[in-house]
């Protein structure tokens, strides 16, 4: 393939993406009231956890976590969770059940790109809203201020993007199991439940029993919420911690990417055989 052809293909791909993102954003804008509700829904879990830990820490720090540290941690969770949430399995389930997958398969661009564009168009603005709320809260409430370190924030941003990619591919690949079973979304919910603990959504990982943390190290869960949050709060500080975190993210990104490719290839063939 000559350079010009490659460049031409890239330009087409870029234009397709821009168009997908534009239309996803316009749809979101139309449903802004619904999105506000999803935002509220998303932040209640960290608020409730913070409320409980705040009360528990009334008598003193919990394993080093003061009330203020909990507040910073769960503000971080609210932000990272919003930016990395994965709901595509439910869309895929509907696409396959109601036949909406059919016309998506005839498009020159794989359905996953529509989902990616959808995710970017949704998560960018909504995460920005939470970030803004955080900044406003920090103006009045010193507890939730994190130190001003642009370098650290840049690394946190990279970690959040990687985390979003892992969680997205994880949810998407699991969701594609809908080609074979009607209960693919249940598998996603199962992982969602486990991630309450292993991702650090309900408490910082260091408050879990050490054996549980040990197991979590070998899974993708800690890298999708806990790691980016702890960069923001300053708990990830040494070079070794950064290296381990980013290495874990890259490994799991590769794993879920491969799993997606496998499931997509086989599932499409399976679907063609049944629905064809």
């Amino acid at each position, binding site marked *: 393939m000559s350079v010009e052809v490659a460049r031409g293909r890239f330009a087409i791909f870029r234009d397709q993406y821009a168009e997908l993102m534009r239309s996803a954003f316009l749809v979101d804008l139309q449903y802004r*009231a619904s999105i506000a509700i999803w935002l*509220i829904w998303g932040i*209640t879990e960290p608020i409730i956890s913070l409320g409980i830990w705040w009360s528990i820490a009334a008598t003193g720090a919990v394993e080093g976590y003061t009330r203020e540290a909990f507040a910073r941690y769960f503000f971080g969770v609210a932000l990272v969770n919003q930016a990395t949430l994965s709901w595509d399995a439910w869309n895929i389930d509907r696409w396959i059940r109601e036949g909406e997958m059919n016309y998506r398969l005839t498009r020159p661009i794989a359905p996953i790109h529509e989902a990616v564009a959808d995710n970017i168009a949704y998560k960018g603005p909504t995460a920005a809203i939470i970030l803004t709320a955080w900044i406003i809260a920090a103006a009045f409430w010193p507890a939730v201020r994190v130190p001003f370190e642009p370098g650290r924030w840049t690394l946190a941003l990279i970690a959040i993007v990687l985390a979003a990619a892992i969680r997205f591919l994880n949810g998407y690949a699991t969701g594609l199991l809908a080609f074979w079973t009607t209960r693919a979304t249940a598998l996603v919910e199962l992982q969602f*439940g486990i991630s*309450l603990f292993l991702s650090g959504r309900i408490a910082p990982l260091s408050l879990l*029993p050490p054996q549980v943390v040990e197991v979590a190290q070998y899974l993708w869960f800690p890298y999708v919420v806990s790691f980016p949050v702890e960069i923001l709060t300053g708990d990830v500080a040494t070079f070794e911690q950064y290296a381990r975190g980013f290495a874990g993210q890259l490994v799991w990104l590769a794993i879920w990417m491969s799993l997606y490719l496998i499931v997509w290839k086989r599932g499409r063939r399976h679907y063609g055989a049944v629905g064809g």
Partner: protein
Amino acid sequence: MRRVRRTLIVLRAFWQLNWLEELQYRGNFIASLLGTVFWLGMAMLTVALYFRHTEKLGGWEYWDVVVLLGIFNALAGVVESVLRPGIGHLPTDVRSGALDLVLVRPVDAQFYVSFRRLDVWRLADVVLGLALAGYAVAQTGRSISAWELLAFVVTFAVAIAVVYSIWVSLMSLAFWFVAVENMSALFDAVFEAARYPVSAYPGALRFLFVYLIPIAWTTTIPASALTGRLNPALAMWAMAIGVAALCASRLLWRIALKRYTSAGG
């Protein structure tokens, strides 16, 4: 009186049809049961995690909180089996104009919309939740007096009334905000907070849950009855709140319904 009887006859016919329909999906029963057991397990682990780092949660011991968790699950079962499939469907009906078909029926619209469906399999959540509450009460080593049991039954009924009123109120908003299709997510969001005794929250949140979004009355009060924390005055207050919530939501429903102009309007 005749109107009430007529409504009941219509409902019975609907529930029978429902039952026959559900019987075809027995696989759903196992799936929903497994789901409930899984989420109950996660909830108990969460409580256990809190108790790794504290002796008491808002003055409640571990098994007291589990009593509350069982009640929470039972209430969630009521939501999933009756409210979500029934009144939870209202926004869709308003948008599509399907509500016309309800309004022309000779039954009370609110009553009919609320109780038109019965997702029988999810009733297992109610049984499971109450069983967990009973088991946890046994673990606390307390013996329940007849009065306490009566207080529990009454306050649990109040809890159902409050949850029902919240649903009616939220769903009535659909008449104003026709485009909002996920109003029920608002309920899910705040109801999450009812997993723990209201005393376990900091002051501001506690105020919110007691006075503004009255979910404190849904789980904390019945659980108080079973753990010896309920005094008669509080029980009276709970009943008053239950009645007030039902009346207020009825009023809101009536005002909202006046706005309905069908889908073409």
